[in-house]
């Protein structure tokens, strides 16, 4: 068993754990737990990143790992937890479906992800055999979270999960995107957050609520 193979197996295992965390996010009933799980997932991702950096010996990936650890592992969950406490919503995940159905759908989605990538799409890349299906799973599950959960905060969780999927993908398959694109993406993320913030602020002012379920006046 070569070392490369060992690393790749390690990455596989870690990726699966990432996926498992998202599953637990879907199962959780408390918002607080969800945020903690997100943090955990980010730490794992950062670990994977570090591993990839180690294996590929590309320096700037370490940097990415650090940033991920800091931003996604601590900052974002902290902000979310802060917001949760601040707007004092009831600490419950409200879903349109029952937990059982949620899990069933999630499993189906995972199966689909694996199904569509079979047989081994990324066979040339030893590091990322399973990361493609897992990344697709994460993206789909993230969107599923956005759809099935009523709370606005859970929509943010969904987006972050999708982001994590993308991140896993870039890191494990292509060692990140070209610098210019990365920078652009960060810039977009930043501006996007600002703009969403502005809009949320205005919506809160106009509607007296931030509950997205109430935003359904425009029909037909």
């Amino acid at each position, binding site marked *: 068993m070569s070392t490369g193979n060992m690393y790749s197996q390690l990455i596989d295992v870690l990726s699966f754990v990432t996926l498992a965390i998202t599953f637990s996010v879907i199962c959780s009933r408390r918002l607080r737990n969800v945020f903690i799980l997100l943090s955990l997932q980010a730490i794992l991702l950062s670990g994977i990143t570090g591993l990839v950096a180690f294996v590929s010996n590309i320096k700037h990936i370490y940097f990415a790992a650090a940033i991920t650890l800091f931003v996604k592992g601590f900052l974002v969950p902290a902000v979310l937890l802060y917001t949760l406490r601040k707007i004092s919503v009831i600490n419950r995940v409200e879903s349109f479906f029952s937990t059982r159905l949620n899990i069933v759908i999630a499993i189906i989605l995972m199966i689909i992800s694996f*199904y569509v990538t079979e047989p081994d799409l990324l066979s040339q890349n030893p590091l990322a055999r399973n990361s493609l299906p897992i990344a697709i799973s994460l993206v789909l599950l993230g969107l599923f979270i956005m759809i099935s959960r009523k709370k606005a905060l859970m929509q943010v969780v969904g987006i972050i999960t999708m982001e994590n999927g993308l991140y896993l993908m870039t890191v494990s398959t292509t060692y990140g995107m070209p610098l210019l694109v990365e920078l652009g993406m960060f810039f977009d993320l930043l501006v996007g957050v600002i703009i969403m913030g502005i809009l949320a602020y205005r919506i809160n002012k106009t509607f007296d609520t931030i509950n997205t379920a109430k935003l359904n006046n425009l029909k037909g």
Partner: protein
Amino acid sequence: MIISENLFYASILTIFTGGLLSCLLSRNFKVSTFIAHIASFAGSLFMLALAVIVLREGDNLAISLFKVTPWASLNILVDSISAFFLLVISLSVLSVSIYSLGYLKEYQSKKAAFLGAVFNLFVLAMYLVVTVDNVFGFLLVWEIMSVVSYFLVITNHREERVRRAGFIYIVMTHLGTVFIFVLFFILYRHTGSLNFSDFQSVGPNLAKNVQNVIFIFSLIGFGTKAGIMPLHIWLPKAHPVAPSHVSALMSGVMIKTAIYGLIRVLFDFLAVSYTWWGITILLIGTFTAFVGIVYALVERDLKKLLAYSSVENIGIILASLGITIILKRYGYGEYAAIALTAGMFHLLNHSIFKNLLFMGAGAVLYATHTKNIDLMGGLIKRMPWTALFFLIGAMSISALPPFNGFISEWLLLQSLLVLGISVPLTSLKLVAFLVAAVLAFSGALVAAAFVKAFGLTFLAVPRSQQAAEAKEVPASMLAGMGISACFCLVLGVLPYLGFKVLSPVTFKITGYSMSTQRGLTDIFMTGARTGLGGITPLAVMGFLVILIFAALILARVLGGKTKTRISETWTCGETLSPEMEYTSTGFSHPFEVVFKTILMPHRVKENSFIVAPYFGGIIKFKSNIKPGFETYLYKPLMDLFLRSSNQVRKIQSGSIHTYLSYIFVTLVILLIFAK
């Protein structure tokens, strides 16, 4: 070739410039309408000359006008079929343009100028529709014709009814056009060309199904425009609300362009390969003719009556096309030529007398400001010329000798007989005779309808103030009607002129023509002759005139000189008041009863008594005809469509979760299916 090309350009340019000038000079409506209609008159003269040249010389005129993109160009080809239709249109436009000069005084405003401009555009579009030689050009001008006529229809757009009629019109015609699009594209697929010239006789090379699809689509597509039942519903709505000179052109010629299309596709392109096409068209035509006239008969609105009558006439034309196809399929080219002549001659005749009648209706409208027959009466004394012309129109459309309608009716019945005698299938023979009976029945109903239309409009005592105060219309309007009336008589007495014009067309399509000799005797003495019999209209006319004088002389000789005293009409001792006269409703009541399955009449009588049942008070009477096709065909379809649309609209629920789930589901489905 050079002359005809120049004539073509001259005509197009004249009409177009006239319209443009009319728009520019819209401040002075008198000048601008004058320019517009003189231009259309002159342009039509050029077109008429062109048509005659092409028909006489047999030289096709081909012009390449312009090219938009590699697949979209506009070519002109005037062959005998086009030339015949050009002739039909130009004859109509000639009289209608003159008529419009006076008629537009109704619209004494800026509107009149635009009306003139749009009218010219409409005329132009019609000319181009029958001459364009490629798919893009045809669809282009075809749609322009629809749109422009829509704007003409809704001239009085302040009335809700008018807007509704216009809308139904444009929607129906547009939906019909879709079928035309499809059939041309299918032809393109199989020929690789968009030029009509390359479609010629392509039919036999196509698969059976393709041919049948093209046939069905052309029937639906052009049938909508022509107004075959049950696609006719726009026609009795749109034609009455349009200004009368426009209704005259729409009813008289625009719906004929659909016949042109049908002939092009069925005969020229497909070279009719199947007998069942002919049978289908024959049956649809007969049905259309019969039901159309039944509706016309009970109509109170003069223009609506005329519109329904147009439906009937389209049915007759279609029936003769059907006969042509059947006969041609069985190899009786000579007989097919008779049937085709019947149809085409009827087309020409109908365009003339329907113009005349609509112009007459317009004149009545101009003088009385009403279209309701029940509010007219006694106009023959107030508007003698209009009455005379309308009478001629009514007689022509009722197929009475010696007017032109009779000739085509005669030919039609003859061709049906020929069909009944010649084809080898007994069932088909039976159909022929049945159709003959139904068409004869319709013919009698037409006479009844026009006795009603003329009698109640022009005769007896005025039933309303407006009718009593009516005055004769301006000379230009009378001139327009007069021209058409003359055509009616001339073509009725000397139908050879019409056959002569038609012979290149029938020859092109069937390989035979009705009469090909020339000479004075032919013109005057050969009316029409088929294998079964013949008529000489000039002789009939002559005998009629002689016998009228004979009657005068006979009465004078036998009875001596007598005096005539004027007195009141006898009404059992009462004084005659308009209320006592027979109304339109009363006149058509027997028909309403007999055709109640078709018409579904609904009558309500409410008596309100003052003292007791024997002392009557006010009696209210309401009667209306249920529009069967709309109630039982269009409305349910429409409702179904709207209801399902409303269901579909629920997908836009406003919930962002739902929206995201659409994306989600789409993605998942794609991922699964694309594997």
